[in-house]
């Protein structure tokens, strides 16, 4: 099975010390490595206002990760860990590789079309220019 890519976002309580957040992140990295996956990127978005109240809280500490794995066990285990870990109040995992593939495809398509367009435009000036030189010699001969 080819490799899959996931976005993993989780929200911690805003009052958790940053050390605890780092602890969660490191445990997740260990779990992913153990199960044969990999955490490619970790971004701490920091304290942000949530759009609605979660666990009676209006703010949360957002952490964003990109996970790569070739089987779903990794995500399953990561989600289980997030569910049981104390500071985490909310999390979301989104599989993204198919959408990224689609994005790549569209991008390639667009580039190809962009590459074709000048080529189409190029012959147009060529044609008027090519008869012009041919016309001059004929005029000269006649």
């Amino acid at each position: 099975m080819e490799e899959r890519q996931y976005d993993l976002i989780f929200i911690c309580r805003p009052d958790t010390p940053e050390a605890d957040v780092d602890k969660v992140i490191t445990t997740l990295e260990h779990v992913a490595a153990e199960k044969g996956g990999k955490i490619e990127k970790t971004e701490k978005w920091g304290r942000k206002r949530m759009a609605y109240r979660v666990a009676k809280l209006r703010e949360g500490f957002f952490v964003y990760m990109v996970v790569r794995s070739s089987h779903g066990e990794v995500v399953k285990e990561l989600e289980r860990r997030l569910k049981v870990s104390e500071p985490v109040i909310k999390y979301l995992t989104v599989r993204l590789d198919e959408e990224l593939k689609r994005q790549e495809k569209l991008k390639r398509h667009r580039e190809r079309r962009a590459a074709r367009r000048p080529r189409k435009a190029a012959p147009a000036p060529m044609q008027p220019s090519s008869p012009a030189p041919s016309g001059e010699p004929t005029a000269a001969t006649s």
Partner: protein
Amino acid sequence: MADENAPQHQAPPSAPSAPASAPTGPAGGHAGGGSPGGPGGYSGGSGGMSGGPGGPRPQSGGGGRPGGPAKRGKRNFVRKKKVCRFCVDKVDYIDYKKAEILSPFIQDRGKILPRRMTGTCARHQRWLTVAIKRAQNIALLPFAAEL
């Protein structure tokens, strides 16, 4: 043929017949009477000929009324053509993590705006709804406004 003859002489009779079918009918009939040209009268005549379906037709003629009475055009009000904002920017993927991109496409109460309001194309609206729903799930966008 008969229609062309009708407006000049039968404009008053057509006006009384119109109000029976639709309340907006008489206004169209008056416009037809005021304008010397055929088009206004023609619509009035058609309204007189067929009662039920003719009802809406003077209405559409009435749409042109405020702009210019003598003009034939039904579409005197030119609605500005809305263009998909994502197509303009050539977006291939709508990121659910960027709430500030998605927020113009939801109402104050948190509802997703329909395509006819925003002008988004079908494909981008499809991606957009998915992105908005994901953003809602991770509390980047509200499901509903809080009171």
